[in-house]
């Protein structure tokens, strides 16, 4: 039986279109952040971190499970603390895991990152239990703008991720650390010869990557709840965003994320069958791999 049989094609409703566009933009920005966080590590170490979605999950558990529920902290200090703690975890992981892994053949390195993610997931389960939960009242509800109601969490995601992307861009373009990142991304050996400590850049990129994972984990809690599998699909979509935008390019990651998020939203807005929503993203990535494997903004063209 065709699962596409009998679906609704009635999106001449302006409110619905706006709501879908907002949700598409918000999720697209989440995909941007996901693509950025694994691109940071990829650029400094050559490692494709296949376990990155589990760090997002872990950040959510830290925020909700440890700081809000167990310690009873308010939302903002909990968010700050959990994100900073994720940065510390990033340092540990960079020193203990990523640094040795980058010297191994690629297959072993990829396997290592996947094994680490499985360890992290099970460690989370053992620490917090199997129970899924949420943070009651956190970014819940809607805000009315005239005839349109927008979910509060999506507005928050848009604002926070936009600020974060601006900050990240300024960091990369205007600071010595950013210039060092870009140098290492372009050519590790030459950067090393020029006096840049490549290992330190790996640690710094892993720290930033996990800081971003912590932020993503906190932001998506009102959307997904806090579950062990909360970030599986986001991780995949982040990869798609990276391919579409241009693997290895931070600006490409931004463009790729927006393209993926808005494409999904527009597909639904114009009557697409929801069961094929994910297929749209995967078709997109296949098309790019076949026709434009460098992505929209290939690494060579991108400044960063």
């Amino acid at each position, binding site marked *: 039986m065709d699962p596409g049989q009998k679906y609704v094609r009635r999106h001449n409703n302006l409110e619905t279109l706006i709501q879908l566009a907002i949700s598409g933009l918000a999720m697209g920005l989440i995909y941007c952040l996901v693509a950025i966080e694994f691109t940071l590590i990829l650029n400094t170490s050559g490692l494709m971190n296949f376990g990155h979605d589990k760090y997002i999950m872990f950040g959510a558990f830290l925020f909700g499970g440890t700081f809000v529920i167990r310690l009873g902290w308010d939302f903002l200090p909990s968010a700050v603390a959990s994100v900073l703690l994720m940065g510390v975890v990033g340092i540990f992981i960079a020193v203990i895991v990523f640094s040795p892994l980058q010297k191994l053949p690629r297959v072993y390195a990829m396997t290592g990152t996947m094994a680490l993610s499985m*360890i*992290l997931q099970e460690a989370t389960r*053992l620490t917090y239990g199997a129970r899924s939960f949420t943070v009651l009242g956190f970014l*819940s*509800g809607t805000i009315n703008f005239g005839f349109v109601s927008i979910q509060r969490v999506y507005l928050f995601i848009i604002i926070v991720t936009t600020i974060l992307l601006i900050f990240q861009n300024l960091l990369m373009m205007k600071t010595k650390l950013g210039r060092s990142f870009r140098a290492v991304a372009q050519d590790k050996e030459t950067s090393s010869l020029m006096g840049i400590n490549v290992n330190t850049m790996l640690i710094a990129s892993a720290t930033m990557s996990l800081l971003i994972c912590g932020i993503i984990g906190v932001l998506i809690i009102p959307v997904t709840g806090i579950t062990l599998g909360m970030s599986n699909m986001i991780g995949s979509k982040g990869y798609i965003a990276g391919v579409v935008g241009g693997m290895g390019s931070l600006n490409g990651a931004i463009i790729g994320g927006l393209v993926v998020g808005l494409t999904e939203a527009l597909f639904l*807005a114009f009557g697409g069958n929801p069961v094929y929503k994910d297929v749209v993203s995967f078709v997109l990535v296949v098309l790019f791999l076949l026709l434009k494997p460098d992505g929209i903004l290939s690494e060579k063209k991108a400044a960063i």
Partner: protein
Amino acid sequence: MKQLNKVVTIIVSVMLAIAIVGCSTAAPAPAEPPKPAGDSQAPSTSGPTFDGEIYVGVTAGITGDAPLEGEAMTRAVTLASEIINGQGGVLGKKLVPVIEDDSYTPEGAITVANKFIADEKIVAMAGPGRSSSFMAISDLIKEAGMPIVTPATSTTFYKLDNPYWFRDRTTDGVSTNIATRFLVEELGLKKIGVMLTNDDAGLAARAVIESTLKELGVDHEIIVYNGGEIDYSGQVLQLRDAGADGLVLWGHTVDYAVICRNMYQLGYDVPTVGNTGFMSATFLDLVDDEVADGLYVVTDINLESEDPYVKYFLDEYSKRYPDVKPDVVDAIHFAHMFLIADAIKRAGVAERQAIADALKETRDVPSVLGPLTCAKNQDCAHTATVFQNEGKVAHAIKTFTLEVE
């Protein structure tokens, strides 16, 4: 720097070691239940003596996307076994559940089923919890002649031509029929929206819901969604724009939480009915009270009933696990071991084929799910109750008892 590296290495090695222990691929021990409040209240396991053991394989989703249900199954079968053994065991032997983790996936179920089938000591199985997992192991079970009692509810099993499965739960075929009729006949709704998960359970439910709606002559819109998504706003908005004034939601628990949250946030407040997932701890822990409030649930167990068996279950459960409130998932899995034990007793011998034959002859076996009688289609449970959530507490509205064919 070297000193820092050394310290970091030690700390993270300890963390990894703890995690690795937790990730051991050896068969995981069942989740250790809290100690009962007083030894005298615990079911006696030291009284009777046994002249052997009978092993029943239990496939539970201890890891995966719904580990709470795996924990509930572990607690329930453990308690049931303790009660059975406290009453003398089965054929003078101790009933031993062998619990393995299938991660709530078809691949995991296949691995566990193969392991149980290869072990000649295991004479029957309970589980798995998901219809797709059961479909994956059906041929293995049939070939091995392994009798299995499953809580999975898909009506697709009828097409399997497999005489070794038995179900002690009301099927989706019955539940979806009741759910749909409830919205139309009890609540008088005129246009029904349907959201179904795109897997075996959802698609099998679709056939029943569509035929019921056609029979009732009610307009409807059906949307099939992929499970595991983080946002179903698009689907919810499509149903809202279609003018659906009631919703049948049939899928899995974690997705329910996302869908209902989306509905609440988008202000799409229509009567919504779903399956047991709406009452489960997994769902209720993921949503605010306002999101859960008002949802209708069709399930096969009424834990509020005055049935003495239900009261017995609640009483024994509270003694054994005083820190855990039992829900329908616990009750479902509690019934498995009693049904299997009863079949072994009637068979007179702990052998797979004999147990399968005895399960087929099950008649009015008392259980927390109501009297179990094996119908021609191998379903043994024939009651369903409609509940409504008040906040996060479900209250029974109406119970339906079906004719056994």
